[in-house]
């Protein structure tokens, strides 16, 4: 039976504050953690499949043109070689997040350096890798575009134009007009994209490293020309995603084509270089920030324009101004994104799409203006938190930006004194501090999950939702345990299988609120059924430690069930709430850095982050997510940059030695503050 909840009004019942098991929000360790630390968690390339062939992608050594022929005879004599797959179903690009259709196929039509053009299949990995290097093919290269500033651009829809920004700048008490550039980034998840495809003549089963199975199954079925019912995707463990595994990727489709063509299982693991070259990049950006304030330090003008790039035919444009739309006030507004079409690999979602490059520039501009206006930067931000959405006029749902700034400043020991650069020195290091606001727009998606209260009194939670390190196994078990009155260890959570009820998957920070709500709704329906078995009302029923209490009576759940399990499908559907409120998570960062006077080397010495993210479902995994975001701040600010050759367009630093993600020694101890919050407009579990 399905329990359906359409989110048309804020759910302020705060049910999880009235349950008594006492595990929701608690910092419980991850149930799957013991598998991860003992090497027994199985990732997509690691399934033991008999007779499995190995596939290695062959990629284009040019940025634009046509592959005219592939000479299979150049490798046919090589040991172990089975076949060169050149099927037109092979994917040239990965699908964008939530694309729900096949990505661009026709691999002979090349649009970026490193685009897959064929799959070499052999008995062993070493044989396939060697043959892939020896495969002869012919191509005609065409002139390609590599410089986003040197091509014509198109304006992305959804721009904000309100009032007269130029006039506001002219009339301002203080103003800044600043240009910034930001670098392109890589998700660089530790597990490279990998798939094992099996075809039994009727059904295609693929173990793959993917974030959003509900969309990925449609993308794969579409690419293969199969009915969705003939496809099964499995991703119970994903070795990091950060946006790079939102859409079905080239390895998944290549392994599937080969398995169907050859009648044997095929494994395709992308090399680290291929992941860098052929999976999503975050676009580089060029941005202009114009901010104007009146004599009271209130924003009157707010301009944020950005130039980003992507391949021809891709809808995605790095949403640089996403949080600029609502974070601060200013009645005269201009927010606009231009897209340049160039021949670099697909631009798509990399962790915090939009905010990761739009917020640092906005916050840098806010600092420059605060200094000009003579206002402390924390105070300046507090002063400019708008009452309603500055363009749409909608109310904000619960918003803890001010609390984040205040609690963060207090914990960090923010010095409100003069902020003149180069005032504090230790040896050869200049020491400075800084603050930034943070925001991440809140999204939810339709989600289903099945919860079964088993006859033995334990529970089973099932959904195709993934855990990419975010803590899904932990939090879904905690929600069910809290609602059904049992310890988390008595709840088994099964994830990452398209045969299970579908949710939106992991991406855009929407998974916990959406799939968590589906579990919650299913549990509410189970509670109702227990109440009806006991001839009482749900509100008068208390469940704790496997025992039901009502009207002064108590009885073990197991006895109430009498050998009959109760299974409910929870169905969460976003509703009017999405249009009625401007919902977002908020935060504030405080950092102390040391800059070497001679070399310019910059070291982060300490960092405090305060976060308003709605109800915290597990304080341990939530803190870890926040820590991860803070580590990414260090990388994007100081070390990470995709570097392209301007003559042939290839990515120069396509590995982890040359693309510098933060390492242990770059990361100091960090403080994380989880600000108390309940947001009923965000989800029926008040989480964001």
């Amino acid at each position, binding site marked *: 039976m399905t329990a359906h909840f359409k989110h048309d009004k804020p759910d302020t019942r705060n049910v999880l504050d009235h349950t008594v098991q006492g595990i929701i929000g608690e910092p419980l*360790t*991850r149930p*799957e*953690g*013991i*598998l*991860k*630390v*003992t*090497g*027994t*968690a*199985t*990732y997509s*390339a*690691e399934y*033991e499949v008999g007779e499995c062939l190995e596939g290695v992608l062959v990629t284009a050594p040019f940025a634009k043109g046509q592959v005219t022929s592939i000479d299979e005879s150049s490798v046919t004599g090589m040991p172990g070689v089975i076949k060169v797959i050149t099927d037109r179903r092979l994917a040239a690009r990965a699908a964008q997040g939530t694309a729900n259709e096949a990505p661009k196929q026709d691999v002979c039509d090349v649009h970026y350096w490193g685009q897959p053009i064929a799959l070499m299949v052999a008995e*062993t*990995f*070493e044989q396939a890798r*060697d043959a892939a290097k020896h495969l002869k093919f012919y191509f005609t290269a065409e002139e390609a575009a590599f410089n986003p500033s040197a091509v014509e651009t198109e304006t992305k829809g959804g721009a904000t134009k309100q009032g007269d920004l130029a006039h506001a700048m002219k009339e301002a008490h203080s103003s800044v007009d600043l240009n910034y550039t930001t670098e392109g980034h890589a*998700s*660089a*998840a*530790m*597990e*490279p994209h990998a798939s094992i495809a099996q075809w039994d003549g009727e059904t295609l089963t693929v173990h793959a490293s993917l974030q959003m199975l509900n969309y990925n199954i449609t993308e794969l079925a579409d690419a293969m020309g199969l009915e969705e019912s003939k496809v099964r995707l499995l991703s119970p*463990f*994903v*070795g*990091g*995603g*950060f946006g790079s595994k939102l859409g079905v990727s080239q390895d998944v489709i290549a392994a599937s084509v080969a398995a169907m063509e050859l009648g044997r299982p095929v494994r395709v*693991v992308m*090399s*680290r270089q291929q992941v860098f070259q052929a999976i999503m990049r975050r676009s580089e950006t060029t941005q202009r920030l114009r901010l104007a304030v009146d004599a009271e330090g209130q924003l009157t003008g707010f301009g944020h324009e950005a130039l980003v790039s992507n391949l021809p035919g891709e809808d995605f444009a790095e949403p640089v101004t996403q949080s600029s739309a609502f974070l601060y006030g200013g009645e005269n507004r201009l927010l606009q994104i231009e897209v340049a079409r160039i021949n670099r690999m697909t631009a798509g979602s990399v962790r915090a799409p939009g905010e990761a490059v739009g917020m640092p520039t906005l916050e840098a501009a806010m600092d420059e203006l605060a200094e000009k206006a003579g206002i402390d930067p924390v105070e300046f931000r507090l002063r400019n938190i708008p009452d309603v959405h500055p363009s749409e006029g909608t109310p904000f749902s619960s918003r803890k930006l001010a609390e984040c700034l205040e609690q963060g400043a207090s914990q960090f020991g923010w010095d409100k004194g003069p902020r003149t650069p180069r005032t504090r020195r230790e040896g050869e290091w200049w020491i400075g501090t800084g603050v930034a606001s943070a925001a991440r727009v809140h999204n939810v998606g339709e989600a289903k999950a099945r919860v079964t209260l088993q006859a033995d009194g334990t529970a089973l939670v099932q959904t195709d939702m993934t855990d*990419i*390190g975010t*803590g899904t196994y932990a939090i879904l078990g905690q929600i069910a345990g809290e609602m059904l009155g049992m310890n988390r260890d008595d709840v088994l959570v099964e994830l990452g299988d398209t045969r299970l009820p579908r949710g939106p998957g992991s991406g855009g920070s929407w998974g916990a609120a959406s799939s968590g709500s589906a579990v919650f709704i299913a549990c509410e329906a189970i509670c109702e059924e227990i109440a009806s078995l006991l001839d009482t009302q749900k509100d008068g029923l208390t469940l704790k430690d496997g025992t039901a209490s009502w009207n002064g009576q108590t009885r073990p759940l197991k006895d109430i069930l009498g050998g009959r399990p109760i299974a409910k499908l929870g169905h969460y559907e976003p509703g009017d709430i999405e249009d009625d409120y401007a919902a977002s998570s908020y935060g504030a960062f405080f950092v102390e850095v040391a800059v070497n006077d001679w070399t310019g080397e910059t070291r982060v010495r300490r960092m405090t982050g305060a976060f308003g993210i709605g109800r915290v479902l597990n304080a*341990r*995994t939530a803190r*870890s*997510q926040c*820590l*991860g*975001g*803070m*580590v*990414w701040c260090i990388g994007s600010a100081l070390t990470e940059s995709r570097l392209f050759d301007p003559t042939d367009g290839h990515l120069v630093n396509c*590995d*982890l*030695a040359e693309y510098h*993600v*933060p*390492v*242990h*020694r770059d*990361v*100091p*101890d960090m403080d994380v503050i989880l600000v108390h919050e309940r947001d009923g407009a965000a989800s029926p579990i008040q989480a964001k």
Partner: protein
Amino acid sequence: MPLSINKQSYSLPADPRVSLLDFIRGQAALTGTKKGCDHGQCGACTVLVNGVRINSCLTLAVMHDGDEITTIEGLGSVDDPSDLQRAFVEHDGYQCGYCTPGQICSATAMLEEIKAGWPSDATGDINEKPALTDEEIRERMSGNLCRCGAYPNIVAAIREVAEAEL
């Protein structure tokens, strides 16, 4: 002489191109050791060879005739985890889990290196026995990347075990 992994003997592979990493994950079917970059840049493939940590992707299986290899599976099990494995769970010293076996193998050997007095870039006076500071742990673990950014939790897990041991 055969190659030994977690005290079990394996014949060397016929194909000399097989890396130790691919041998462990393939022929030995011990997939706890991870392939993150295949170029010695990320540390996910860290194993112990005769007690010393190495990147198993940077060496060929046939070069380890007679060597004793210890992988993450050899350090502890679900039922009987090592102190570090237990501490990583307790401190949430991971998120996605893919770098985790490498971090734990690396930390296991690293603590032995500190005990043996090996200096690092973070050691002030290399004539003195290195102190177990967070900076020493961070420096010595910097060959093991974690993209989820679990570094502060990993350091906390290692610190807890090291303080009990050293």
